[in-house]
């Protein structure tokens, strides 16, 4: 027998699976509800966009979203924004030299920010806070657990950046079902919406990253043909260019922060206005267009290369899709139309389209009934290779290879009696190791003493469906296999991640109590709304005495929900009301069924 709790949304065993767009500027969470992807409320006041801003307070408290943004003027360096730009980056990376209000901690390895209230934090932890906030919002929405997510990444993210994103998911207590490339997510949202077939280009210019993808949709298979882009180019650069107009020689962090915020507002106004004021200086749209033209031009190179890699001409495309807030800039739209020779599509909100597509993929992966709908075949964005003699890169897996993929290559020893081999894994298109991204170094030991050229080591690369690489090596002459742990050069080790998880659990005890209470309050609200609705629509099915009893229970649940801090008690009261409603719900169901049988609309 069913109660009101089961009328809609029966609780799923692993909770709801969601799609998350972890953006440079804003983040969103979406879920599939009644077969349609929908962005959920993510911040105070019901906003769908959660600013990707995290504030660390003196008392050790953490604020995320608009409440963190409010702290920015007073606490510019304790309020971290755009941390996505630093994901998978190491201390002293070029990205840390750009204009911005950050206080970097010293040392080597992964980037860390000095913040008040505790130890320096890594971009992975900051992203983990954003993901945790989104997870809680989604849990409040569903009044149930959310433990699985598809998280999107720029297609152009390298291995270290992907690994960092996956680690952030783990820190937030999420099982990352898939790291999905943002343009692919957008294409999925469009493709399924329109049921179309053919070739599409997705031009995605966000706050900090630019991606271009060419995809083909045929017979239920969505195949990425090529991707390209720049993981350090986006709307933030437009802001910086504008801020540069009003900043003096040696600006303070507070001045920089103010100028960047004002620049962003000016940029947004220039979408509809032709002349705006920026901290007392007039900026025309023509001036802005000229300022950002070189930045936009850089995206054209990537677009042409992606077309070439896909072996297509612009005229052979069936559509061009715009994604990312920065594609609202009129000069960007004009440029895209110019490069592809056609007007781009933007009918789905460019801010939401990635999260919506991620929610679709989460549903496809977890919902057995939908598994047969569409299959996504994605690619790796950058070539993977090994360092060989003379610092030259030997590519093992070329860019735009469809994943998952594996590739093995045999290397021979070059010295008599050589018993070890250093293996340096790199990612990138350039010829020399020093120009590529170093992913990992390890040493294969225990090679038996043999003359030069006889010892043979097979190195195998495997890239999984998330685009993440694992490497193994095997000495062939003896058949001895060696297990190798690849130490990430730029990321965190598993031990570090474990420690962070333990730390966050220690501090989270209070949070959990509060959250469980909040969840039960929402649940109580929902059941009360449902009960009231059923009473008004189907109240005639109850005897007056039954109705009075039910209404009394509803009133006491409402009162308890406002007073109690004990989530167990509240849950008991909810279950009690649910139990009491069962005979009523049964009558409602019977009525619905008999109406359906005679062909009436329920």
């Amino acid at each position, binding site marked *: 027998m069913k109660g009101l709790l089961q009328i809609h949304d029966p609780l799923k065993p692993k909770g709801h699976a969601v799609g998350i767009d972890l953006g440079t500027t804003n983040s969103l969470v979406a879920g599939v509800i009644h077969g349609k992807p929908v962005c959920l409320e993510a911040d105070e006041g019901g906003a769908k966009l959660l600013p990707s801003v995290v504030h660390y307070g003196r008392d050790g408290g953490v604020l995320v979203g608009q409440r963190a943004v409010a702290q920015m003027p007073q606490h510019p360096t304790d309020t971290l924004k755009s941390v996505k730009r630093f994901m998978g980056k190491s201390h002293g990376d070029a990205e840390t030299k750009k204009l911005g209000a950050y206080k970097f901690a010293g040392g080597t390895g992964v980037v860390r920010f000095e913040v008040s209230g505790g130890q320096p934090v890594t971009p992975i932890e900051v992203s983990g806070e954003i993901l945790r906030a989104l997870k809680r919002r989604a849990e409040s929405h569903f009044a149930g657990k959310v433990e699985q997510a598809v998280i999107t990444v720029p297609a152009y993210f390298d291995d270290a950046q992907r690994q960092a994103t996956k680690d952030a998911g783990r820190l937030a207590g999420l099982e990352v079902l898939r790291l999905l490339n943002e343009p692919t997510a957008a294409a999925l949202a469009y493709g399924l919406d329109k049921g179309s077939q053919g070739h599409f280009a997705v031009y995605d210019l966000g706050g900090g990253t630019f991606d271009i993808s060419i995809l083909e949709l045929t*017979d*239920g*298979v969505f*195949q990425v043909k090529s991707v390209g882009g720049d993981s350090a180019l986006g709307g933030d650069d437009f802001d910086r260019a504008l801020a540069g107009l009003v900043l003096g020689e040696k600006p303070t962090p507070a001045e920089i922060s103010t100028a960047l915020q004002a620049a962003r507002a000016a940029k947004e106004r220039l979408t509809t206005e032709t002349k705006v004021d920026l901290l007392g200086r007039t900026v025309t749209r023509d001036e802005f267009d000229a300022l950002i033209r070189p930045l936009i031009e850089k995206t054209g190179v990537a677009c042409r290369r992606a077309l070439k890699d896909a072996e297509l001409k612009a005229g052979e495309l069936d559509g061009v899709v715009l994604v990312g807030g920065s594609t609202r800039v009129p000069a960007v739209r004009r440029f895209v139309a110019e490069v592809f020779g056609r007007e781009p599509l933007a009918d789905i909100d460019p801010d939401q389209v990635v999260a919506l597509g991620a929610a679709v993929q989460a549903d496809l992966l977890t919902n057995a009934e939908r598994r047969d709908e569409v*299959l996504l*075949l994605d690619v790796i964005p950058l070539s993977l290779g090994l360092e060989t003699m003379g610092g030259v890169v030997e590519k093992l897996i070329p860019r735009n290879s469809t994943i998952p993929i594996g590739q093995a290559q045999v290397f021979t020893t070059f010295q008599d009696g050589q018993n070890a081999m250093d293996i340096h894994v790199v990612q990138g298109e*350039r010829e020399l190791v020093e120009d590529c991204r170093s992913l990992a170094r390890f040493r294969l030991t225990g090679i038996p003493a043999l003359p030069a050229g006889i010892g043979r080591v097979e190195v195998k690369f495997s890239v999984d469906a998330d685009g993440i690489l694992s490497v193994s090596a095997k000495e062939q002459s003896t058949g001895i296999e060696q297990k190798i742990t690849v130490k990430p050069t730029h990321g965190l080790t598993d031990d570090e991640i474990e420690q962070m998880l333990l730390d966050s659990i220690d501090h989270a005890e209070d949070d959990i109590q509060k959250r469980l209470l909040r969840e039960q309050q929402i649940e109580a609200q929902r059941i009360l709304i449902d009960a009231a609705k059923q009473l008004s629509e189907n109240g005639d099915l109850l005897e007056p005495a039954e109705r009075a009893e039910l209404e009394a229970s509803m009133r006491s649940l409402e009162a308890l929900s406002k007073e109690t801090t004990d989530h167990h008690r509240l849950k008991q009261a909810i279950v009690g009301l649910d139990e009491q409603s069962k005979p009523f719900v049964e009558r409602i169901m019977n009525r619905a069924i008999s109406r359906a049988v005679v062909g009436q609309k329920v």
Partner: protein
Amino acid sequence: MSHFELFGLAPSVDLDMASLEAKYRELSLANHPDRNPADRVGAASRTANINEAFKVLKHPVRRAFYLLGLKGVDLEKVSMPMEFLEGILEQREALEAAMAEKNFVKVRGLAAQIERDSAVALSAGQASLRAGDVAAATSALAKVRYFGRFLEEVEAIEEDAA
């Protein structure tokens, strides 16, 4: 199992791209880990093989090299005629000179010449493979391999310049 067998095809220089792609979609739908949640590891390894085979078969140069490999020829061990090597060496020197001058128009011009030479050698190699002349196919395709190296270098240069 050879790449051709995996796709249910007889080894051949000439493949119909549309049916190759259709077969690739069919194999992916049946084997992809997303469609086989109970056997993700096995499915991932089967899919990796399918992806690798497709990468080789759809590309005319890789396909021709692979066919030659099936006939027992290792292109890396083929020794080239002196005349050819001298020619390539000259082209390389010209490329280095153009690079030193940062003359990318010249770089592109050299690449275009090599692309034409490569296309000629490839179709000669393909014709020999069709005729079953392994020796002739080997000498033609060994040239394609050298040209390919050259073009990869040009690509890296253009990448650096971009």
